[in-house]
């Protein structure tokens, strides 16, 4: 079973009234400061679709996800942070490296208790998408992401080697979409339930 997720980037010079409509759309999570490379909103693919017509004012980078694994430690999660990382593993990466990378990433919740719910997925569409994987987490607080997750030695001391251009085992492209938004409900409960 697959699901969809989209990163939405407002176009420069877009019609302000349409932009205001977009910003008020409850189905979109507005990215918080610190987001990198993923535009202005995340549509998490639950409930209503992205309101039609927004292609006129925004770029909608939609991906189709196929779950590799995930965990719903708190199905009743009521916030406050949903984070998504879209990444691209280089097409010439050795298969055993890709498998090791996937294993390492999915071990992060064992080392970082601040990760509440999580899902790791392969991007399986649409054709031509630049992304290969999606790594989503939910946190009770923003510090859970910015401190516990980012500053964990497991993250910078081990996992990041797959991303680091100074390390020979790097297999992930430098251009990432690292985005997060406030939420009052569990997106992943719907995805994993």
């Amino acid at each position, binding site marked *: 079973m697959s699901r969809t997720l989209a990163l939405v980037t407002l176009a420069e010079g877009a019609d302000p009234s349409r932009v205001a409509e977009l910003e008020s759309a409850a189905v979109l999570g507005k990215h918080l400061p610190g987001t990198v490379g993923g535009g202005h909103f995340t549509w998490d693919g639950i409930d209503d679709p992205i309101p039609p017509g927004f292609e006129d004012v925004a770029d909608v980078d939609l991906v189709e996800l196929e779950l590799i694994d995930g965990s719903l430690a708190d199905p009743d999660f009521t916030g406050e942070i949903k984070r998504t990382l879209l990444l691209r593993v280089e097409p010439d990466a050795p298969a055993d490296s890709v498998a090791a990378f996937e294993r390492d990433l999915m071990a992060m919740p064992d080392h970082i208790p601040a990760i509440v719910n999580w899902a790791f997925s392969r991007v399986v569409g649409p054709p031509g998408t630049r992304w290969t994987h999606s790594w989503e987490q939910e946190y009770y607080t923003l510090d859970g992401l910015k401190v516990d997750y*980012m*500053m964990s*030695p497991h993250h*910078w*001391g081990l996992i*990041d*080697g797959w991303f*680091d*251009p*100074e*390390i*020979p085992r790097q297999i992930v492209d*430098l251009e990432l979409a690292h985005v997060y938004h406030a939420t009052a409900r569990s997106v992943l409960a719907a995805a994993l339930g």
Partner: protein
Amino acid sequence: MVGKIHVLDELTVEPGRLDEVRRLMTEGYMAGAKARGMTLEQTWLTPPIELFDQPNTLVYLWSVPDAAAWWAMRGAAGRDPSVAGFWAEVDACCVERQRRFLIDDQIGEVEE
């Protein structure tokens, strides 16, 4: 909380190319590393004499003050395409290279 972090580069160099790699590191990396917040703590050569028919390993030990400084270093290197280009040039002289990160560890008391 993690304090000082050491960055350990081990460059296993093809026979006959030690000076070339030393020069690359000195002229092509040191200044940029310093600008990214890295302090060079020590360099080593092992085996401790140049072998002309087998590889030698050059070891560079750097440090950054803490995890925030580590991310600053990492971010700066990621934004500068010349850094990856530099390592590609070094890798062409090496049979193997790795970078590891180290923190202080407590050595337990050994009972007699």
